[in-house]
């Protein structure tokens, strides 16, 4: 026969099913949060790394004039180069399923898809290499933005306006392609023979290489890339228009990925701490309910060690139940979460199994954390003297009226009696109040911080919209006469103003010989009204500026040597020229950009041509922007200009907002989880307060208090705790959101403008009031149902 004390443990668990479920769910939430967050993070990092290693990312990419296999071979023969790959890249417009709305397609052509040395492209599903002439394989991320199907025909428009049909024959995975949802352009792969159909020359125009040295620094990589450019490419007469040398071993979405990972880690630790608080509160509640029984058992000969073991087993049983609930639900949610993240970041996941240590951590959260959290309340309960246990109505001996704070509360006059009672009751059990406040405050602070981070993102986008004083932009495939293209576009219905700019890739050579080729130079009228620059230092361009440029803050960040008042050299169109920095403006999320007066720049380069047209519309609305842009594209198209890409500012705002929104989505998921932990914590705490106030409730009922009055007292108590948590949370959320926004800005390299969200604070007040009310309903209704007889019998 099982010893009665262990039967008691079993019966306590099975008799109080609701309580057992509540405790198990509380702990399971902790397991769930840790499992999803840590497990998700580990799977994402592992799978991303595996996919990245398999993809063989380029150490350097050259965008060039035509070259052939001989150049590729020469590059590959270099001792510092491990692999080399040539390919043809171009950007064209296309229509799909009869849509009138053309979209941008980045086309890549390779000679042999089955033997790619750098930036591997992996077939998905039933796709088999090779691709035949007239066929196209879409990069898998296209499915994130459109319902493409095998057999669809894309009508691709060539430079002279001919429409070439390409049949979609399958999908492929290319980790190094920018996902369609990030740039609003799909990537497609075609056979080399298809290039002639597209009126593209059949030669390579980009060279991708990887370096022999695996742990090469970016500086060394840049230097090597420059050497190879001159020794291999330029020495053979291949014009190089641009070179890209990314941070070695770092994916271009790695920053966002790191940010997500960092957030997940921070929130995982927070979840762990909160579930710890919750467990302490819950176990304290259970011990409080058991104090009298502990007294009886001690009176019957039960020793502290025996009782401690009994309650530790009880807590372990809650933990085991929580593990049974939490582990599979975390695995399931973790799988959805990983799929969601992998889809967004466009990488393949081959296994959803988290590493063993995550499972160990989950089980520890379920079993060890509750046991650790329970040790103090269990020790307190089981060591309590028999007389105190038998005479007690709970673990904590209420003590009110001695402290200064209590006396001050006692001096508050003019409040309705039930409200005064609720406020004073709140401070009756200070230890529990502190624990509940800590849980709810942290949850409230996280919620408010998330709102502020979202506010900061909105603010950053608003700043950006303030900079753009235009509605749409059309980029041309070649330079054109400024006055002529402007005349074509200004005639378009709905367009109220037009301006044209010239854009040039540039290279900046650092003092150590390495190069930065990821900057752009724009020539725009010095008196432009199409942008509203926000000056950080110096001045904007003015009439008579010849070699003056204004740089944005991204240039300063990337190249600290380029500063206000300094002269620096830039290679533009193959020639090095000296420039003088006259002003620094805030960055616009478009990387490092240098601005010069269009006409002066044209004079210097000997080419007054422009390659982008900016337009303003009458209504500035999304639809109007889109319609005007499409009409402008058509007008330019009909006038013989090749349009390579278009974008509306509202579309761009939305894309940026969505990119950053990915991070906010993760934050919101965690905030909701933490809020749930807070609600459960408050419910537990209120239940305990009701239980320990049973005698007072009896007395109040005996002297005439009605159900409603008792109900109001306990509802008010919950609200008082909620409002206090909101106040403390609001104070805490300021530094928390500032740090969070800073961490996000650092990891994404997007200079976010911090903005504390006061509407968020106000909104959270409403949410917390509601949440507190919900958390207090059950305990308050239980309190109002206590009969005088039961209350008095509850000694």
């Amino acid at each position, binding site marked *: *026969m099982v*010893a*009665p*004390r262990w*039967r*008691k443990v079993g*019966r*306590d668990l099975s*008799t109080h099913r609701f309580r057992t479920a509540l405790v198990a769910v509380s702990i399971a939430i902790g397991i769930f949060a840790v499992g999803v967050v840590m497990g998700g993070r580990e799977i994402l990092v592992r799978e991303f790394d595996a996919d990245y290693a398999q993809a063989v990312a380029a150490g350097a990419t050259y965008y060039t004039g035509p070259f052939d296999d001989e150049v590729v071979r020469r590059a590959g023969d270099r001792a510092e180069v491990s692999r080399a790959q040539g390919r043809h890249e171009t950007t064209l417009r296309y229509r799909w399923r009869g849509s009138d709305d053309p979209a941008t397609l980045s086309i890549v052509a390779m000679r042999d898809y089955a033997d790619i040395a750098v930036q591997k492209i992996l077939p998905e599903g039933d796709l088999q290499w090779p691709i035949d002439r007239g066929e196209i394989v879409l990069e898998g991320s296209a499915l994130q933005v459109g319902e493409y199907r095998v057999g669809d025909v894309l009508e691709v428009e060539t430079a002279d306006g001919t429409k070439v049909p390409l049949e979609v024959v399958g999908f492929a995975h290319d980790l190094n392609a920018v996902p369609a949802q990030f740039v609003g352009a799909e990537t497609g792969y075609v056979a080399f023979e298809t290039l002639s159909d597209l009126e593209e020359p059949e030669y390579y125009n980009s060279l991708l290489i990887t370096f022999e040295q695996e742990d090469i620094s970016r500086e060394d990589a840049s230097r090597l890339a420059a050497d190879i450019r001159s020794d291999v490419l330029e020495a053979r007469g291949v014009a190089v228009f641009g070179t890209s040398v990314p941070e070695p071993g770092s994916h271009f979405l790695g920053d966002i990925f790191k940010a997500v990972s960092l957030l997940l880690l921070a929130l995982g630790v927070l979840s762990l701490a909160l579930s710890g608080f919750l467990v302490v509160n819950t176990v304290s509640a259970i011990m409080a309910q058991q104090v*009298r*029984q502990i007294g*009886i*058992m*001690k*009176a*019957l*000969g*039960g*020793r*502290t*060690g*025996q009782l401690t073991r009994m309650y530790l087993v009880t807590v372990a049983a809650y933990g085991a139940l929580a593990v049974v609930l939490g582990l599979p639900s975390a695995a399931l949610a973790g799988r959805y979460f990983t799929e969601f993240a992998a889809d967004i970041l466009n990488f393949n996941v081959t296994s959803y199994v988290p590493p063993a240590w995550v499972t160990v951590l989950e089980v520890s959260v379920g079993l060890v954390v509750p046991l650790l959290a329970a040790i103090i309340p269990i020790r307190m309960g089981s*060591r309590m*003297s*028999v*007389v105190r246990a*038998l005479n007690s109505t709970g673990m904590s001996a209420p003590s009110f009226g001695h402290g200064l704070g209590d006396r001050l509360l006692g001096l508050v006059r003019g409040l309705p009696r039930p409200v005064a009672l609720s406020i004073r009751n709140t401070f009756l059990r200070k230890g529990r109040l502190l624990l509940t406040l800590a849980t709810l405050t942290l949850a409230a602070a996280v919620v408010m911080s998330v709102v502020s981070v979202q506010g900061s993102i909105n603010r950053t986008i608003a700043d950006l919209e303030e900079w753009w004083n235009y509605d749409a932009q059309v980029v041309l495939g070649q330079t054109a006469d400024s006055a002529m293209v402007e005349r074509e576009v200004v005639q378009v219905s709905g367009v109220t103003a037009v301006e044209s700019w010239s854009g040039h890739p540039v290279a900046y050579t650092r003092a150590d010989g390495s190069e930065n080729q990821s900057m752009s130079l724009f020539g725009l009228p010095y008196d432009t009204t199409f942008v509203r620059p926000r000056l950080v230092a110096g001045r904007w361009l003015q009439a008579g500026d010849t070699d003056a440029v204004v740089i944005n803050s991204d240039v300063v960040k990337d190249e600290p040597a380029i500063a206000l008042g300094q002269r620096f050299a830039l290679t533009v169109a193959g020639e090095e020229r000296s420039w003088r920095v006259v002003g620094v403006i805030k960055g616009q999320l478009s990387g490092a950009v240098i601005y010069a007066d269009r006409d002066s720049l044209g004079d210097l380069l000997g080419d007054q041509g422009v390659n982008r047209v900016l337009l303003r519309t009458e209504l500035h609305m999304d639809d109007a922007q889109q319609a005007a842009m499409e009409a402008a594209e058509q007008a330019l198209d009909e006038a013989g200009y090749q349009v390579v890409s278009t974008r509306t500012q509202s579309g761009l705002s939305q894309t940026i907002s969505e990119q950053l929104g990915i991070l906010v989505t993760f934050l919101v998921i965690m905030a909701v989880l933490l809020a749930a932990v807070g609600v459960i914590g408050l419910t537990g705490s209120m239940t305990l307060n009701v239980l320990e106030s049973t005698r007072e409730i009896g007395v109040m009922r005996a002297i005439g208090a009605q159900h409603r009055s008792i109900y109001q007292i306990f509802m008010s108590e919950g609200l008082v705790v909620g409002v206090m948590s909101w106040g403390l949370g609001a104070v805490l959320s300021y530094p928390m959101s500032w740090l969070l926004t800073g961490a996000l800005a650092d990891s994404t390299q997007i200079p976010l403008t911090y903005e504390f969200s006061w509407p968020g604070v106000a909104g959270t007040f409403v949410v917390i009031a509601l949440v507190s009310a919900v958390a207090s309903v059950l305990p308050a209704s239980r309190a109002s149902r206590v009969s005088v007889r039961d209350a008095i*019998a509850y*000694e």
Partner: protein
Amino acid sequence: MDDSVTKTPLLRLHDVVKVYDTGEVPFTALRGVDLEVETGEFVGIIGKSGSGKTTLINMITGIDHPTSGEVVIDGTPVHELNENQLARWRGRTIGVVFQFFQLLPTLTVLENVILPMDFCSMYAPKERVDRAMDLLEQVELADQANKLPAALSGGQQQRAAIARALANDPPILAADEPTGNLDSKTADAVFGLFERLVMQHKTIIMVTHDNDLAARVRRALHVADGEIAEERIHRPRHGA
């Protein structure tokens, strides 16, 4: 009862003082109480509410500690034991009966009776059920053994609590207002049970404010203001 059999007292309290720190003014519940009880005595402790009678029985059961003085029971200096030692000692030496029965609600009557044996590792596990059933037979509750306490009447619960108090065959039974929550007929039955136990040489110390019951015990101690104000020896009505 044969007084001549016992030479040394089973229970001895010497100059026991208990002061409660109730905040600003300390409250003295017992003021130097001296008491000796022999084996097989049936002692009633009587007094008004707040007189100190519950404090006195708590000193005997070790449920509470004296502020000063000595409590020696069956040769054990109870006042020197810590909580853990007290629990084990109490489980084997004293059976405690409470006014509100205090059966554990999630255990059956039988399991409640086995619980003290389990805590104190008394009797072989296989014997415990038989012994508990014997005890329940004695209190006429064998047919209720597998019910939960909530299914029993007040009198039945108190009889189950007495069976539980006897689980480890302690020489002493301490009962604090054991009939206080029972109607007079049930109270009489419970008292009769105590009388039968005394006949089996159990020593019973019972706190009560029921003067009729107090008149039926062998020895009645009247407690007032923390002192034993008066002691009466009654001639037993039922031949002991």
